């Protein structure tokens, strides 16, 4: 490498055919540049980016021992990589290049030729001023650990896991609840094709459990993550099930014998069905291993269960139940991460005027799914008004469906459209029509959005099946009289008539919200949220599954509401993005990263707070025997934006190639009038 201390600068002014030369007096600029301090060579050429142009630079580097190169031509956004490559080929560090943009910023925009020439001179002079202080930078690569951590085992996590595992890479699939499956497992049929949700999902659930490359950790939570792209370390808490995972055969005798069997509302059934303290969330759960709910189990919460002790222990043949079991911490190393933590449905507490809490025949869309599911608490019959034992009840005769509950509604803070409600309500209306051919069905909507493949056709079909669509957003839902009649107060906005529609079943098309505990993941990964509260992708158009943290990708509804096909598509995209890193096995680290001068750092941590990438931390430093805290940049996480430098009071942290000492000379040149 030819990088002597004393600068020897070559300045190359490009004509760009006539693009530059017809406006700027190029020979005058070349002449001007030749007199600037440190400039050894100053030349003009027709097309610097052409092979002969690049060769000109390479030859000068070889013959004139240049150690800095300035190309005055087009925008660096265009040809910086070209010239960096050229000077690297000539044996010079590629970061000894500076460009002066005299085409886009001068010749193409300036009317007066003399003024254009003067401005070009200034820009070249500023480039020389900066070039004197350029530094050689090293482009590093780090190895990528060939494994992926996927958080959340809904359809997004499952699909991503299968794709990565099938490609031959290790996957750790972490799920918070006792079973994989997520929200999709709760659904009855899927729109618009009316496939049975469980039928298409369960084979995949079984696959993730059996795949040799997938290590499935259900009932587990990510506690800590550190490191950077290619080299993350994660700590995962495997919560105690109080059931020996290996011994449990999933026979279910324990649950039948549990003293609380059928007395605890089932989360999977949206609390309209029941389970015991030892339970399998649903029959097709994967893994088919029982779990004890430590808060409800009498033995665990009260220390005593019946006179004879826990019935489950007595019932369990293999002796799998172990009340002494403790949470287990697992540490893993991974190269990539996919966040697929899904969504929560809109909490009806935020919209009390719809009377959901008071009326058990006013139910959410997800409750409806469990109600009509053949594996649900009613065996698939839409029976309402059952007693505590789950008996009695009636079949509704007048059913109302309400759109946009908790979506497109600023009053509850959700301005966005949840994208799935129009269609799932259409599907649910169809299911009611199917199960109760005599029922009167009315759907209250704001706008109908049937934009997907087959959606409009399906919507048409539902309407043809005798479902009435009324355009209007109900203001209130309340009980009338002693029977189960509820009134939907609404204005038909197409005719302008106020209505008080009486129904005996109301289904609320609740929207999708970010997970209530989204902060935990944000804090772990330093991810950002978009204004809707979902995770923010790196670019809304071009990097929809990436995040600002390299090596961390998003899949499914945690990034925003989606239907199943979109979720699967995004999961596959996230898998492919993670696979790119793992298949290549190495990742380039940004060379223009920030660097700390620990002797000058006051350890205030402003840079730590400002860094959007969590790339900076405070570490202990021995300063002449005294221990002080100073900033430390993890170069693999730093993207070189330089926000830290502007926040630093003492100038102790600086982005390479854009240091204060490199920018100030540019200001000095450009600030002084010609």
């Amino acid at each position, binding site marked *: 490498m030819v990088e002597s201390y004393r600068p020897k600068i070559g300045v190359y002014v490009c004509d760009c055919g006539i693009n530059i030369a017809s406006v700027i007096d190029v020979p005058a600029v070349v002449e001007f540049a030749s007199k600037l301090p440190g400039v050894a060579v100053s030349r003009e050429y027709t097309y610097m980016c052409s092979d002969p142009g690049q060769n000109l630079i390479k030859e000068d580097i070889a013959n004139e021992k240049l150690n800095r190169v300035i190309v005055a031509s087009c*925008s*660096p*956004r*265009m040809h910086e990589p070209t010239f960096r490559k050229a000077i690297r080929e000539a044996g010079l560090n590629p970061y000894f290049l500076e460009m002066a*943009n005299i*085409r*886009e*910023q*001068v010749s*193409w*925009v*300036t*009317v*007066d030729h003399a*003024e*254009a020439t*003067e*401005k070009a001179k*200034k*820009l070249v002079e*500023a480039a020389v001023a900066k070039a004197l202080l350029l530094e050689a930078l090293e482009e590093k690569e780090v190895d990528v650990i060939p494994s992926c951590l996927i958080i959340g085992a809904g359809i997004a996590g499952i699909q991503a896991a299968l794709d990565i595992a099938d490609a031959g890479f290790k996957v750790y699939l972490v799920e918070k609840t006792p079973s994989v499956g997520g929200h999709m497992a709760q659904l009855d049929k899927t729109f618009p094709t009316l496939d049975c949700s469980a039928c298409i999902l369960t084979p995949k659930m079984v696959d993730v459990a059996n795949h040799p490359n997938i290590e499935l950790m259900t009932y587990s939570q990510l506690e800590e993550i550190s490191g950077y792209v290619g080299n993350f370390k994660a700590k995962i808490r495997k919560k105690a099930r109080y059931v020996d995972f290996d011994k449990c055969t999933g026979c279910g005798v324990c649950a039948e014998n549990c003293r609380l069997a059928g007395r605890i509302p089932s989360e999977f059934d949206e609390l309209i069905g029941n389970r015991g303290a030892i339970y399998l969330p649903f029959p097709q759960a994967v893994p088919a291993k029982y779990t004890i709910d430590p808060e409800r189990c009498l033995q665990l919460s009260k220390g005593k269960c019946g006179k004879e002790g826990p019935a489950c222990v007595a019932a369990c043949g293999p002796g799998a139940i172990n009340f002494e079991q403790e949470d287990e911490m697992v540490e893993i190393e991974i190269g990539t991460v996919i966040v697929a933590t899904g969504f929560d449905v809109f909490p009806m507490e935020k919209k009390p005027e719809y009377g959901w809490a008071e009326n058990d025949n006013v139910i959410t869309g997800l409750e409806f799914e469990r109600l009509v599911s053949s594996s649900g608490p009613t065996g698939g019959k839409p029976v309402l008004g059952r007693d505590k034992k789950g008996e009695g009840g009636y079949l509704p005769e007048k059913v109302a469906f309400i759109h946009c509950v908790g979506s497109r509604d600023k009053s509850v803070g959700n301005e966005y459209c949840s994208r799935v409600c129009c269609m799932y309500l259409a599907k649910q209306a169809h299911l009611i029509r199917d199960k109760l051919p005599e029922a009167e069905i009315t759907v209250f909507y704001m706008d109908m959005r049937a934009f997907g493949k087959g959606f409009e056709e399906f919507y048409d079909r539902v309407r043809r099946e005798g479902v009435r669509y009324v355009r209007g957003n109900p203001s209130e839902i309340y009980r009338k009289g002693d029977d189960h009649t509820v009134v939907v107060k609404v204005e038909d906005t197409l005719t302008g008539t106020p209505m008080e529609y009486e129904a005996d079943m109301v289904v609320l098309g609740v929207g999708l919200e970010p997970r209530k505990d989204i902060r935990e993941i944000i804090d772990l990964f330093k991810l*950002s949220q978009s*204004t809707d509260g979902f995770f*923010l992708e790196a670019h809304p158009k071009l990097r929809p599954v990436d995040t*600002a943290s390299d090596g961390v990708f998003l899949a499914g509804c945690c990034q925003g509401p989606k239907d199943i096909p979109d979720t699967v598509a995004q999961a596959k995209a996230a898998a492919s993005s993670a696979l790119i890193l793992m298949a290549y096995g190495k990742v380039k680290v940004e060379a*223009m990263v920030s660097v700390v001068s620990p002797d000058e750092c006051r350890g205030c941590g402003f840079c730590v707070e*400002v860094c*959007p*990438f969590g790339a900076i931390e405070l570490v202990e430093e021995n300063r002449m025997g005294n221990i002080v805290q100073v900033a430390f940049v993890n170069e693999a996480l730093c*993207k*070189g*934006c*330089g*926000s830290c*430098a*502007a*926040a630093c009071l003492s100038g102790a942290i600086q*982005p390479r190639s*854009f240091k*204060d000492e490199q*920018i*100030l000379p*540019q*200001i*000095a040149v*450009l*600030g*002084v*009038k010609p």
Partner: protein
Amino acid sequence: MSEEFEPNIVAFLCNWCSYAGADLAGTSRMRYLPNVKIIRVMCSGRVNPLFLLNALQQGADGVLISGCHPGDCHYLEGNFYARRRFMLMRKLLEHVGVDPGRVNMSWVSASEGAKFADVVEETVAKAKEAGPMDQFRRRQINW
């Protein structure tokens, strides 16, 4: 004094939006005044408000900081920090008696070539109105 005062403006443009926007103004052959000289930085969040002070001291009659629109920052948050910093620095300079028209900021996306050209014209117009920056310019000092 017969010649009209031509202000000199130093501009700091973020690489991803505003610099690209300026490039687009070029590729679209929009004409704008040559008074504005651009320094490229990776992010408007990189621009230390002291740069601005330095530019005025060196002899600039005005400065321009331009970044991505809020929410569009390539580095997610840089422009939010920049906005806070320059809002405040401008107030501080105003308190010292510097014409606030010398401190300009804009959001210019990569697709807003025309906006960039407009921003240049407006910045120059404001600096022209403010007149030559001679309050604490270094060159004023007689050695």
